[in-house]
Structures are given as C-alpha cells and as structure tokens.
C-alpha cells in the first residue's frame, strides 16, 4: 500500500515563527502536493512538485514556500507564520510522468497536520 506520512499530526506555533511541515511518500511517486483545508472552503492547492527540485505554484501560494531535495520528501515552509495560516495541511503524492495526469493517476493523501498559529 502507498504510504504518505506527515511529520506531525498537531503543531502549535507562534506568530512570526518559521514553520516546516514535512511529507514523505514511499512509492517512488513523481508528483507531490500540498493543500490546506478549511471548513467551508474544501481543499486548496498551495504548491506542487512534479520532479526533484521542481515546483509550481498552486492556487494560494502566498506566504508559503516549498522544497523538494529528494524524490520522496516534500516540505512546506511558512517563512513567518501568521494567525490566518491556522489550518489543516494535507500532503499528497501521485504517480505520473512529467506531471501530466493519466488514467492511472490517483492522489494518495497523508493524515494531515493541524497547525495552530497563536
């Protein structure tokens, strides 16, 4: 089974802190994604990566950055956390070549990290 793990289930940080959220997948997937999930807003894509060291902005990249130094690991970075970044953060991975969606594509999700910024 595909496994996507996230470094923390719950995280509490203070305004202005630099925050790292880590995601690891064990299926040699090309694509990895970071979403935030807020009540009534569904999932919104922050950033994604289709290859090592490659990244693309999603729908809401402001205030975030990402890093993908190894294929299995995708990090989300909040350079200076703010209270409006309090949310559930979900990581996902999927197979695929050069980022294009194919019929075999399925995004596999981690359990999420609930981040609270005080």
């Amino acid at each position, binding site marked *: 089974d595909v496994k996507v793990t996230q470094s923390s289930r719950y995280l509490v940080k203070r305004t202005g802190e630099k925050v790292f959220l880590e995601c690891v997948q064990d299926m040699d997937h090309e694509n990895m994604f970071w979403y935030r999930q807020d009540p009534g807003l569904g999932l919104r*894509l922050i950033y994604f990566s289709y290859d090592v060291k490659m990244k693309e902005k999603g729908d809401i990249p402001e205030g975030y950055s990402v890093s993908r130094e190894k294929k299995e690991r995708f990090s989300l970075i909040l350079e200076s956390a703010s209270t409006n970044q309090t949310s559930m953060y979900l990581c996902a991975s999927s197979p695929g070549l050069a980022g294009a*969606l194919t*019929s075999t594509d399925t*995004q596999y999700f981690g359990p999420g990290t609930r981040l609270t910024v005080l």
Partner: protein
Amino acid sequence: AQSVTQPDIHITVSEGASLELRCNYSYGATPYLFWYVQSPGQGLQLLLKYFSGDTLVQGIKGFEAEFKRSQSSFNLRKPSVHWSDAAEYFCAVGSASGYSTLTFGKGTMLLVSP
C-alpha cells in the same frame, strides 16, 4: 478554469436508506473526475474515478458514480447507507493536459441517523 460545485453542504440520511451526493463540474474538455472520502481526523481516501469509457463507475465500499456529460455532473450513489459512511465527501476534477493537479469541491458532510 476548471471548477467543481457540490451544492449540498450537509446531508442527513437514515441508516439503510439510499444516498446520492451531487457534483457539478465546469471544464472545457473531457474531464477526469474523482470522488474522495474523509473520515474524521483522517486524510482523504479515493472512492472512485472516471477517465473514459463506461459512464457508470464502481468504487470501493459499495459506492458508484455516473458521469453525465450533458448535465456536467458526476453524482455519487450508494443503495444502502451504513453508519460507518458518515464522513465528508469531496468531488474533484482533473485535466488531461498540463499538470496532474486536481480542483476539489468544498465537500458534503454526510450524517447518518439511526
């Protein structure tokens, strides 16, 4: 730009009754369509997906969905709901061109009454 609408924020169904969750999409070409389920405190799990071919798609846990191009819909159905089906359900649309990103709807929370 592609978009997904799930018109129902909450739905309550009696255990044993049938279920239909609505999903409408907006996309210029043939879409790739997905339904995911999220149980409390969990990540999302894929229920089923449509890429091409038969417009009635079978998924896990007894769910099915029907793609209707004329109505731009991909509604999820289950003939008899179990209490364990209580969860939040997300419809998503993807593109066959460009990157393999998905656009998700805002979700429908399913409550199951005894």
